[in-house]
């Protein structure tokens, strides 16, 4: 294989040349040094920049925390305000409801309204006017004395007397139902004047529109 030799030698030489003349170290080359200096400069700029970013971030976090705290405080304040407002509203609604529900009372075997009863009914008028969608039921009751059946009719007259008054003050009669329970549903058990006088009454109940009652 003599004719292969020169080729082998060439390969060997080229291999040797690669092995005997390694590349020069870049860091020691002038270009590398320049680059390193440049890089170093860049590093220090980055460091400064990073520091600045850190500071900025810290400031941002602090600001965010402050903002969050402020927002929380604002929310808390708003909540407290709204709770207070809600309490006021609730109290007003409760007062309105209780004014509306206030009963009126009657003399024995009578269905006429007393002056006091008229005043009690008067106080219900603004509520009925502020809540035009409201439907109500007036129930008439009697004490235990007298005919059980007649008392059913008497209770009806008592409920009707209150309705008549409200209608005379401009409330649409279609909004008012009347019902009598006679002596069947006493408020107070007992057989003395104290029990009887509390049982001779009209009760007022909201049938429709009671959930979103508007305070007058």
């Amino acid at each position: 294989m003599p004719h292969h030799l020169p080729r082998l030698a060439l390969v060997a030489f080229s291999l040797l040349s690669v092995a005997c003349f390694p590349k020069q170290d870049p860091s020691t080359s002038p270009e590398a040094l320049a680059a390193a200096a440049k890089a170093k400069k860049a590093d220090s700029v980055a460091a400064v920049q990073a520091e600045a970013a850190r500071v900025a971030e810290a400031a941002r976090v602090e600001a965010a925390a402050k903002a969050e705290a402020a927002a929380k405080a604002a929310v808390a304040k708003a909540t407290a305000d709204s709770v207070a407002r809600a309490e006021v509203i609730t109290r007003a609604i409760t007062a309105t409801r209780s004014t509306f529900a206030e009963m009126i009372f009657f003399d024995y075997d009578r269905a006429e309204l007393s002056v006091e009863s008229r005043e009690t009914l008067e106080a219900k008028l603004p509520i009925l006017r502020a809540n035009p969608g409201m439907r109500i039921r007036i129930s008439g009751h009697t004490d235990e004395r007298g005919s059980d059946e007649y008392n059913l009719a008497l209770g009806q007259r008592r409920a009707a007397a209150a309705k008549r008054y409200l209608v005379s003050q401009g409330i649409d009669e279609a909004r008012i139902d009347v019902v009598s329970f006679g002596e069947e549903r006493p408020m107070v058990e007992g057989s003395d004047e104290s029990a009887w006088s509390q049982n001779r009454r009209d009760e007022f109940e909201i049938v429709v529109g009671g959930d979103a009652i508007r305070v007058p």
Partner: protein
Amino acid sequence: MPLRPFALSFASVALVASLGAQEPAPGVRIGLTYAPGTRPGLYVLPLRGAGADSVRAIVARDLDHGDRIAVIAPDGGVIPSGPLNYALYQRLGAAAVLQMTMPGDGSLQVALHELASSTVRNSQRFVLPQPALGPAWRLAVHRVADEVERWVTGQQGVAASRVLFVRGGTLWQVDADGENAMPVPGVGAALGPAWHPNGTVIAWTELGDGGSRILMRDLTSGRTSVMSGRAAANLSPAFAPDGSQLAYAAGSDGTDILVRPLDGEAGSFAITAGQGSTNAQPSFSPDGRRVAFTTSRLGRNEIYISDSDGANPELLTTSGFGDQLYRSDPSWSPDGRAVAFSTQIEGRFQVATIALRDRSVKQHTSEGINEDPSWAPDARHLVLTSNRGGSRQLWVLDTESGRMRQLTRGPVARMAAWGPRLPAAR
């Protein structure tokens, strides 16, 4: 069941006889030695058979409750064999002897011996529906007692009848002797019951959260009909005596009395024009031509009567009540002669009757509060509500003697309506 109390009435025969004829007692047929108004003595013999002791006890008690006969039925006693020793029973104060036997075929053979003539005055066989002591059996025994009362006095008894009333907010019924008190099933909230004259249909006021209305039920079929609206107060139903119409009070501001046919609203009419006053509690005269009712048209409650079409209204309870301005609960007696009602006396309610002929008033009660009377079919007894025993219960008043017996026990009972004599097939 001990029968000793009835032996006591033996003594009362002589007592009543010595008081003389204070009250008319038309139709006393037996015991010719007794003046009218006395209670003839009737000896009720013991008998043998299934439920025999109960038969004797029920009949004796029913006759005692009738207040027309002095029942003699001592505990034990000998069941006679062979012909009766009439002289023996006469010596015991009896004018007649009731002999009942049970042949064993589920029937009851009943004979009434009249001692003065020493003859069997009446004799009849009654069928007792089995089982012994069941409700139908009891009703049949009550019917025997009612017939015996008719044999002796000429007046049929009222033991075979029932009383409707209100307890715990719903309808109950009880036999006239106080037995078998039970709710009427499936009625619900109820007030003011009324009987149809046929004894198988009832009406009442249903009270709900939205108001009251009138319902009617056929007790045989269980079918319930709505007889009024609910938009206003609807209360105090009453059937006309011919059973074709129902009267009740209705109105949203005050009430008027309406009358409607049972089978439809066409032909309904009002018999009052109250203009805001209460007109309620109609009660028909037995001929159906007149009606009594409560009205507040004078500003206080009084009883009026009018023609049944509303014409010719007049104040019935005119005078004699001082300043006690409250009368209600009229009930027209089945003989047409009187109206029973409640009246306020010294701040409390009492039961009185007013005679239609001369408007004379008789107060029947004074102990406790007594109200809401309803006549028995015999036009002599009233069932009413009284608190004399502590709580409100139903009591039966004999309007002639003033005797009271307690009909119900237990939770409060009120608003009684005494029904007609019950038909046999129930």
